[in-house]
């Protein structure tokens, strides 16, 4: 048996799962979004659901909100993660402990984190209670609205909290593999600390930062549970809006739900490509 065939055979189970479940699901979703469901007598595909979705103001507002959530979370997480990795690669007493603490919440599920945010930052949460005890606020509504708020602060807080260690671990591993030799050379040739970071280290770690950021962006753009738990009732993140249409008692809303799901998939793909190109051009340029 040639190596090629062996590789193909070994990959087959994984590819079958991806092909059947992922692309199969995508295909069925695409068919339903086109109003094609022979089981209930819909056999003439059309674009009605897409027209309805794109002409709805609610969809546009949801899209802007979702983009804001993903973009802001990704940029803040990446910036903090790089800064943290720069500190963590140094040698200092207690580094092992700090490193462990830094990575600890990688194991905490998103939902648990969201409940934590709720307990800490809601208007009757721990910080509001501390504020009350300190005489800073008189009633829950005096505390700033950080969850269920129109700017999605609670959602972004949760994502940043969870994604900083994720990007951080990748960047740190990257930095340690690269070592400090290149920067030392740059410094010996007269580069400032900032210059050696900006023009030497950053381009070197950039592929790692980029791939981690893309993962975070795509995940946050399509994730349902955090905006469902911490989001305002209106506008809602796209996945929440799609799920709401999917569970609508009116069966006619089902194709629209599927259309939204397909649009979410296409939009995240487009934005990932754009994000990759834009940041790559900026760093190299």
């Amino acid at each position, binding site marked *: 048996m040639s190596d090629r065939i062996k590789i193909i055979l070994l990959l087959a189970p994984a590819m079958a799962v991806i092909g059947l479940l992922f692309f199969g699901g995508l295909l069925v979703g695409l068919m339903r979004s086109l109003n094609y469901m022979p089981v209930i007598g819909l056999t003439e595909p059309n674009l009605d659901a897409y027209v309805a979705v794109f002409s709805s103001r609610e969809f546009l507002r949801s899209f802007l909100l979702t983009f804001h959530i993903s973009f802001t979370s990704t940029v803040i997480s990446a910036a903090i993660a790089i800064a943290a990795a720069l500190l963590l690669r140094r040698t200092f007493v207690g580094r092992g402990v700090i490193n462990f603490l830094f990575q600890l919440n990688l194991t905490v599920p998103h939902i648990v984190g969201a409940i934590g945010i709720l307990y800490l930052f809601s208007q009757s949460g721990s910080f509001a209670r501390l504020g009350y005890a300190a005489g800073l606020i008189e009633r*829950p509504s005096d505390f700033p609205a950080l969850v*269920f708020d129109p700017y999605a602060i609670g959602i972004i807080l949760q994502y940043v909290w969870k994604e900083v260690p994720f990007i951080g671990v990748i960047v740190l591993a990257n930095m340690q593999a690269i070592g400090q030799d290149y920067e030392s050379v740059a410094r010996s040739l007269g580069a400032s600390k900032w210059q050696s970071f900006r023009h030497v280290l950053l381009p070197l770690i950039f592929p790692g930062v980029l791939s981690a950021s893309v993962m975070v962006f795509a995940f946050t753009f399509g994730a349902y549970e955090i905006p469902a738990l911490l989001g305002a009732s209106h506008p809602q993140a796209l996945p929440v809006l799609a799920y709401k249409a999917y569970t609508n008692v009116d069966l006619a809303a089902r194709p629209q739900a599927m259309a939204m799901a397909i649009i979410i998939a296409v939009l995240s793909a487009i934005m990932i490509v754009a994000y990759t190109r834009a940041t790559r051009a900026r760093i190299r340029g």
Partner: protein
Amino acid sequence: MTLKRRALLGSAMSLALFGASQIQADTADGDALIGQDWDAIVEMARGGEVNWFLWGGADNINQYVSDYIGGILRDEYGITLNRVGLTDTAEAVNIVLGEKEAGVMDRGSVDMIWINGENFRTMKQGGLAWCGYTETLPNTALINWDNPAIANDFGVPVDGCEVPWSRAQFAFAYDAAVTENPPRSIPELLEWIKANPGQFTYPAPPDFTGAVFIRHVFYHAAGGVENLLGEFDQAKFDEASARTWEILNEIEPYLWRAGATYPTSVTQLNELFANGEVALNFNYEPAQFGLGVMAGTYPDTVMSYGLSDGTIGNTNYTIIPFNSPNKAAALVLQNVLLSAEAQLTKAQPDVWGTSPGIEMDRTPADVQAAFAAIERHPSVVSAAELAENALPELQASWISAIEQGWLANVAQ
């Protein structure tokens, strides 16, 4: 095992059992049973079995059905009860619908379904229900068919196609240690909201409980529910809904977070209430306020209450599909469910704690006494007190129109 798998396995098993039971007298012909002597029906049912499809998501309900009701059927009537758990009642309706489409007219696999609302409407519209038999049941005497909330299932006339099992009614709640005089009618509530800014909110539809609250305001705006019963009427809807959105937009600045956002689920409202962010709460199942106090989520001083202009109640029913081959056994089962003893047991807080579908004052004196002696949790309003002012649910078409209208006119 997941509920769905259990339901599937259950259906498969009951199908297999059903095949074996064909030697028993087949009682698929409903017309032959209607008006028959009850003892004769019981004899026909003896030794047979009945496949009851019902939501299986609560252990206490499953236990009551399998052990208590199943025990009575086995010991007193020699009938085997097969409880088939469902995650969604529509699954059972779809089985019957599929059988009808496939031409299975007298050998169906479903003998009874726990049902109400839209699923009942589907059964009735699709001609999937067996109707006109209710007077044959001896315990029909315990049912108050003159109560519009019993005779209409979410606005659809029952017409002898199902019999009531239990009732639930909307109730409000407040913390007596914080709020002195909670508003006791919708007009009072609207005034109260303006006088107490930030202390009230309701979950945004499609949340079920939030939608029920909006219907209370809708009834008020329409000048009473009497005008809204029956088929959806666009003219009536336009008039009442315009007024409803006006009222709800008028109170919006006085809601929690000045109405900039609404809770998205009743669970979120419960949290806000538990944390003292809002002063009022409401639920379709008042027993849950007692459970909340027992769980320590709410303080002991939380009290639930009804409104003087009424709160919406719904009734849930049991229905027999047109193609059930075991109609005699299904009738016996329905009669047992309606019996005073079975309803009394079901009302015990440690069994289920739900309100009877029958009129308890038509039951024997000892049952009435035992029913009156049931110790309610002090935080739970008495079902009898609530029932004095009960409002019916509307037909499903009204309900979805109100929800859509709210999203378009109030949410944005």
